[in-house]
């Protein structure tokens, strides 16, 4: 028997039940909410550097800073610091109406100047914003009263969605210019529901409720977010009562602790698991691709490996995404897979062979899922050799277009737009796509600048149907995020995967 941390924790299940006697107090008894968070917060500037594009950190950023536009738990936009937004008729200018009466954490008034400056700063390549290529589609910002206008330098249909996505945060112009980047790192100021009280790098951040928050004062006056990257340690934190809320633990642990009396919510989030197919041999044979798709029983994998926590998907769109089309189906069909392979001269005795790359431990049961898929493939006549690599190597190989014929990856798209899922993943000229065939490029290209929203979404649905029909990629599942909390603390999950303290209430 292989002993690892998870095994040890499983073995301890019986004895740990004793700990149930010491479960955390009910919500009304909690003065200071303690959250065991799964990542460290390296930097406080949410618009620059690697942490700015780390989806998991966004929950901390959104506690302190507001985005231009508010994103609701179901991923839909709502008025936030920007209350109204849109294009002019010929889509050459945008307008943003700014909320009045909002204060920064230092007490100074929030103004439309802050919005214009934040957008201009994000578009300036000297600041190092990783999403500068999107922000630079706007320019020539002008402020009139509480309205900001800007020229559309290059039409980007998703520009307003980016205003509640990565790096879409409003920062305080006067304060930032006064203290500089170092001063801002030391004492960040936002307009968000919580203010930074104390920050110990690699250890914790202590937040105080913003009494003037435009969305209403949060329920918990003080929130401490401890950075606990190790899953076993997070489980111990919440089990021992040292923390009231935690997230992202093995599903077996989630079930065990829920049974022991903790509250839990497991909600589908915008992350998906998928297998990229590369347009190299043997994937150039459509029968091989289609058989590879048909031979995978996604629901069985979810049930057996993920304790049922996952949603099988047939396209790169989840039900929350704008271009989700439930009529596109790629059902499990072992007989069809055998038939397709036989048509190309392959079978269990004469299998088609290729390599599949995967991470191990980067996402829940990633390696085990690929092992199960390889087992299912073997039954129909596909012999895949597994190569484990680090996620960093995946990025490098993908950028160089040298991934193996099949490669497991997870894709996050918390704005739910088809461009940021199917678009970026499948458009050949993008350095991040893997399948680069001309037919697909020609189908996707006109959609990038399509100004008619209904036509644009319909176009992406057609692309998804075409991809499914030709098996250019293997969508697997939508991930479910497990969150555990002390009895009496009610957590509202956010489909983006961000864990937001201001959405937590006492029961």
């Amino acid at each position, binding site marked *: 028997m292989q002993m690892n941390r998870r095994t040890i924790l499983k073995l301890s299940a019986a004895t740990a039940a004793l700990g149930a006697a010491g479960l955390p107090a009910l919500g009304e008894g909690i003065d200071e909410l303690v959250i065991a968070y799964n990542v460290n917060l390296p930097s406080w500037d949410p618009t620059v550097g*690697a942490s700015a*594009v780390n989806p998991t950190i966004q929950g901390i950023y959104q506690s302190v800073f507001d985005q231009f536009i508010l994103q609701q738990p179901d991923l839909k936009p709502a008025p936030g610091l920007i209350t109204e937004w849109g294009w002019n008729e010929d889509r050459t200018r945008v307008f943003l109406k700014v909320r009045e009466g909002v204060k920064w954490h230092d007490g100074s008034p929030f103004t439309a100047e802050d919005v214009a400056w934040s957008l201009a700063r994000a578009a300036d390549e000297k600041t190092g914003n990783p999403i500068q290529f999107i922000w630079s589609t706007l320019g020539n910002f002008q402020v009139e009263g509480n309205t900001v206008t800007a020229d559309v330098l290059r039409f980007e249909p998703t520009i307003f969605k980016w205003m509640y996505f990565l790096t879409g945060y409003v920062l305080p112009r006067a304060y930032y210019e006064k203290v500089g980047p*170092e001063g801002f790192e030391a004492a960040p100021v936002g307009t968000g529901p919580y203010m930074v009280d104390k920050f110990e790098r690699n250890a914790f951040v202590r937040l105080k409720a913003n009494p003037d928050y435009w969305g209403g004062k949060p329920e918990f006056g003080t929130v401490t977010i401890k950075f606990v990257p190790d899953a076993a340690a997070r489980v111990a934190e919440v089990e*021992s009562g040292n923390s009231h809320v935690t997230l992202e633990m093995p599903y077996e642990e989630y079930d065990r602790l829920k049974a022991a009396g903790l509250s839990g919510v497991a909600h589908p989030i915008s992350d998906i698991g998928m297998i990229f197919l590369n347009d190299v041999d043997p994937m150039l044979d459509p029968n091989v691709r289609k058989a590879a798709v048909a031979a995978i029983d996604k629901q069985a994998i979810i049930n057996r490996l993920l304790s049922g926590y996952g949603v099988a998907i047939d396209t790169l769109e989840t039900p929350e995404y704008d271009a989700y089309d439930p009529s596109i189906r790629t059902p499990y069909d072992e007989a069809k897979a055998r038939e397709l392979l036989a048509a190309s001269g392959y079978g269990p005795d004469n299998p088609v062979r290729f390599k599949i790359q995967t991470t191990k431990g980067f996402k829940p049961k990633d390696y085990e899922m690929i092992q199960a898929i390889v087992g299912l493939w073997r039954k129909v006549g596909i012999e895949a050799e597994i190569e484990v690599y680090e996620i*960093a190597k995946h990025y490098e190989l993908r950028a160089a277009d040298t991934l193996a014929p099949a490669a497991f990856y997870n894709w996050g798209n918390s704005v739910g737009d088809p461009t940021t899922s199917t678009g970026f993943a499948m458009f050949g000229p993008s350095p991040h796509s893997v399948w680069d065939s001309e037919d697909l490029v020609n189908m996707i290209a006109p959609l990038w600048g399509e100004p008619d929203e209904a036509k644009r979404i319909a176009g992406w649905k057609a692309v998804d149907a075409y991809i499914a029909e030709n098996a250019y990629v293997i969508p697997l599942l939508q991930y479910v995020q497990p969150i555990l909390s002390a009895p009496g603390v009610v957590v509202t999950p956010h489909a983006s995967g961000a864990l937001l303290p201001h959405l937590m209430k006492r029961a």
Partner: protein
Amino acid sequence: MRLLRAILLRLATSAVTLAGVAVIVFVVIRVVPGDPVSMMLPPGATDDDIARLRAFYGLDRSIPAQFLIWAGGVLQGDFGTSITNRQPVLDLVLGRLPATLELSVLALGLAVLMGGVAALTGTRLRGTRTEAAIDVANGMALSVPDFLWGLVLVLLFGVIFPVFNISGRVTPSLDLPFTTNFYLLESILRLRPDLVADLLSHMILPALALAIPLAAIIGQLLKQSLKETMHLDYVTLARTRGYGENHVILREALPNAILPTLTLVGVQFTFLIGGTVIIERLFSYEGLGNLAIDAVINRDLPLIQGIVILFAVIFTAVNLIVDLACVALNPRLRHG
């Protein structure tokens, strides 16, 4: 004079070692797969966007050119800026070092205490069931790696009997009056028993996890050395002069038997600091090890370089100190 020459020679070789480490780490982390820019850019980025960001972080130059720029900065005390933390590397590394040093020293102290007591007890009660029990316990302690001890301790003293803290270095709600990052040392000097207790409550489990395997090694080696020394003529002479067994072990045998253990402790201390990487992660302890893991995950090249160089400095410094201590304690070495 001979001693001075030996020290100067060791310092010179240490400088060469550090330069070698710097070159190796600089080249290796740039050759292995994983580019910080490709980790940072979202999928919509074009080749031009990638090139722009590579230039922003100075990664568009050749490796020798990057090395010369970095080495020039290091010689002036500038180790660069962390890509993920956006802070000077030297500030980050020196800011975390005290936490790791305090944890390592506490772990070493516990290991010496536990190993020493086990060795002396085993020697004093040699041939009895107690010695056999100590040997069995030593074997168990050695065969289980430190991170597994960490999990066992978390389960025992964090969950089942929650008497110690299992994450962090200090309770977030406490007001800390510290002016340095040596929290434990400073709270002792400031005569703040409340802070000392809180810090120890956070440090005791990770320190124990690090200490247990080392204590077993110390216990075994010291007991073996004592056993050999106890058969030497001068020890027999001490017995014939009427000294009790405790006096013979502690005053006659131990001073001679301790030298190989001292050397081992020095060498193991460097490994102990290395071991903090996993243990700090497990206990979410805000030390250098935790910082190192994040740096590697995020391919934060300047930070990885800074941490490795600092580890190398610590390793060479500890080895130098151990060598000097051995010279100071051994008359034969001291007088050539």
